[in-house]
């Protein structure tokens, strides 16, 4: 039987297990929208800006482990998607983005709504395809799914000229996709695994440092990581992306590390003698000054992407492969060899870590009159911790406080823009999470400035009755920018005041949503309770202390051991180099 290219697109998506796509129509994709109209297996969610479509797909992907799918038109549709694609690339989120394109005979002619989508998205995708032949359409889309989800996941663009989706072809369900050249390595070399076990046996001040790779690898990886922690008794720290990959309520968990991580995890990283990195890429926000990064540690790194190894930090034992497979191999060797750790040394190490923990680095001065952002998040955590809840965030101070004060006991519950730091990520991502988990509570912890960047999606959540809760930590500042200006630019708050804010409660109501506001600490619990209880979308405007700073903090260009605990400490950049860091 003959099908149009558009019908083939829909069939191929369904055959790849897709049940929902996030998109926005336009001239170049009209035939595909027509095909969407004529069926009812595949659900389409109409966003209000293409960037939001990609973030929604990311939220969907991150909270389910499946591939998120996006459909946008040519030209401005594709260029609007670029931020989302870059975000997905940086955080290794599997996304397939179908972009419309002008007909093949017009490509290169500066046709109406033509953009060089393949050229523009080449550096911000894991791979991209231009389909010029309708007979290759189905195979290419299936290959895009394979590339997006295998190895180190990432976004893949498939550019679809209008004549190709209008042409006719046969359709056959494809078997297993084997790519001609793309072969992700999945299992580490056995001899390197043996070496790693030997090193771990001898460790006196060890640390396990795990990242987003644990979550991408899947629940098996999280379980095996727990087992590794159990059999060794080692402390575990997570990156921002890795939160939930190891249970936050576990006594061996010592908190997030990095610029705003806990004192105990950063000090332990600095002093450790053996480090086991799992699915973490030694990002500059994590390492601080490289020459002071874990200076005496022997390092083991488990990563599926060879290019993540020895990129910033020299690693002694690289284990290239899927985190779950490598952890499994490691534990098998550990059992076979009946390995043990240096119990006495590990005990001493834990005593040291407990001393650091006692510093209580997240303590803050609470107030009776103004809502401290930390307090609001503590209450949010307390009142939601027993619920089936997912959190997303925007980018800024609120994001860091959320990472510090919320707690994640399982993977997939925490969605944040780590690598790119995209303001405007959290709200559309929350929509994607809510679509995937219609019965769950989904909360976007937002800053007022970030929320402004994608608040057009209020219309989307209203249309689809998505009961997403936007919890705005409203400090009327681009707080993170203001904090850096306070520390590094003499308190000159250039353009960081969020002037002319809307009345968020009235704004919510304008969309027929519920709006809530708290201005005093004693209103916070009621606001949260009402927000949770409401069976529909809510915008909660929580007016927090304007000048609060995020601590602890490793000043830019400093080492982990130079962490600052509060504003009495000097947080100026340590070096000239530090001053130019972002």
């Amino acid at each position: 039987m003959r099908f149009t290219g558009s019908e083939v697109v829909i069939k191929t998506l369904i055959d790849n297990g897709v049940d929902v796509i996030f998109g926005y129509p336009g001239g170049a994709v009209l035939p595909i929208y027509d095909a969407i109209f004529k069926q009812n297996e595949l659900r389409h969610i109409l966003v209000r800006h293409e960037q939001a479509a990609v973030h929604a797909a990311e939220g969907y992907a991150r909270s389910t482990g499946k591939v998120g799918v996006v459909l946008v038109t040519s030209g401005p549709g594709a260029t609007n998607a670029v931020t989302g694609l870059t975000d997905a690339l940086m955080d290794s989120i599997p996304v397939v983005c179908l972009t419309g394109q002008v007909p093949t005979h017009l490509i290169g002619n500066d046709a109406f709504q033509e953009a060089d989508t393949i050229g523009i998205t080449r550096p911000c995708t894991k791979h991209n395809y231009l389909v010029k032949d309708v007979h290759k359409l189905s195979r290419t889309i299936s290959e895009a799914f394979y590339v997006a989800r295998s190895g180190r996941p990432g976004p893949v663009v498939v550019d679809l000229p209008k004549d190709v989706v209008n042409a006719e072809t046969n359709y056959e369900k494809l078997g297993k996709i084997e790519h001609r050249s793309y072969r992700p390595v999945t299992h580490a070399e056995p001899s390197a695994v043996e070496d790693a076990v030997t090193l771990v046996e001898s460790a006196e001040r060890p640390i396990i440092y795990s990242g987003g790779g644990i979550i991408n690898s899947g629940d098996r990886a999280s379980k095996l990581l727990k087992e590794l922690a159990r059999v060794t008794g080692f402390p575990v720290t997570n990156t921002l992306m890795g939160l939930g990959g190891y249970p936050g309520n576990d006594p061996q968990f010592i908190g997030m590390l990095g610029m705003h991580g806990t004192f105990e995890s950063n000090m332990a990283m600095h002093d450790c003698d053996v480090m086991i990195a799992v699915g973490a890429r030694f990002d500059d926000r994590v390492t601080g000054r490289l020459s002071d990064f874990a200076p005496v540690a022997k390092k083991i790194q488990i990563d599926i992407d060879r290019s993540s190894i020895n990129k910033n930090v020299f690693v002694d034992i690289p284990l290239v492969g899927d985190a779950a497979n490598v952890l499994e191999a490691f534990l098998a060797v550990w059992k076979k060899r009946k390995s043990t750790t240096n119990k006495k040394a590990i005990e001493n190490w834990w005593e040291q870590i407990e001393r650091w923990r006692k510093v209580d680095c997240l303590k803050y001065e609470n107030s009776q009159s103004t809502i401290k952002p930390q307090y609001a998040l503590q209450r949010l955590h307390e009142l939601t911790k027993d619920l089936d809840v997912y959190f997303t965030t925007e980018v800024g101070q609120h994001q860091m406080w959320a990472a510090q004060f919320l707690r994640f006991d399982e993977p997939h519950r925490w969605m944040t823009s780590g690598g790119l730091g995209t303001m405007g990520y959290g709200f559309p991502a929350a929509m994607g999470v809510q679509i995937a988990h219609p019965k769950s509570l989904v909360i976007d912890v937002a800053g007022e400035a970030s929320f402004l960047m994608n608040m057009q999606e209020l219309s989307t959540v209203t249309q689809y009755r998505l009961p997403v809760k936007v919890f705005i930590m409203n400090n009327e500042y681009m707080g993170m920018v203001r904090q850096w200006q306070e520390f590094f630019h003499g308190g000159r708050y250039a353009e960081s005041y969020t002037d002319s804010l809307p009345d968020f409660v009235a704004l919510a109501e304008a969309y027929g949503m519920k709006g809530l506001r708290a201005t005093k600490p004693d209103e916070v619990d009621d606001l949260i309770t009402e927000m949770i209880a409401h069976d529909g979308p809510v915008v909660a405007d929580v007016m927090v202390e304007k000048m609060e700073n995020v601590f602890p903090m490793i000043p830019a260009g400093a080492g982990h051991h130079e962490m600052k605990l509060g504003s009495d400490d000097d947080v100026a950049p340590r070096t000239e180099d530090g001053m130019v860091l972002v």
Partner: protein
Amino acid sequence: MIHGRWGIEVSGVERHTIACIVDNEFGVLARVVGLFSGRGYNIESLTVAVVDVERELSRITLVTSGTRMIIEQIKAQLGRLVPIHQVIDLTDEGPHVERELALLRVESTGEKRAESLRIAEVFGARAVDSTQESLVFEITDTTDKLDSFIDHMGPLGLIEIARTGVVAIGRGAEVP
């Protein structure tokens, strides 16, 4: 002991010749070039041509330089590109043959003409075109030899140079 990208002790800069076997498809070269420009790596030379028509494979040969850590990064990054089948570091793999071709157009009359022909002979270059006032030489050799030949021709009326960049291949019977 610590190797890093910014401001940190960097071991010596090495020059490597790397061959990539790639799908001969639209955009592959842009991916490779984009990788180098996007990540700030050096490209000293780059050549590309189809080497297997049936299997639609091309070979890209590139010469790059950087610290050991950067070279390893470059290879890992190249290996990550979806249409790349194989990355071969010829410099690391040991004995290999490197060749480059250059064409030199020289204004040459009288004594200079005889002199340039004599030097060409020494370098094993061939005159492939000749007019009353000019010669075109072709030389195929290592990059060093080409540089040296060009230096010699400079004072003898060198007008224009075209070079292909390096192509290279391993030695012996082993399949890479």
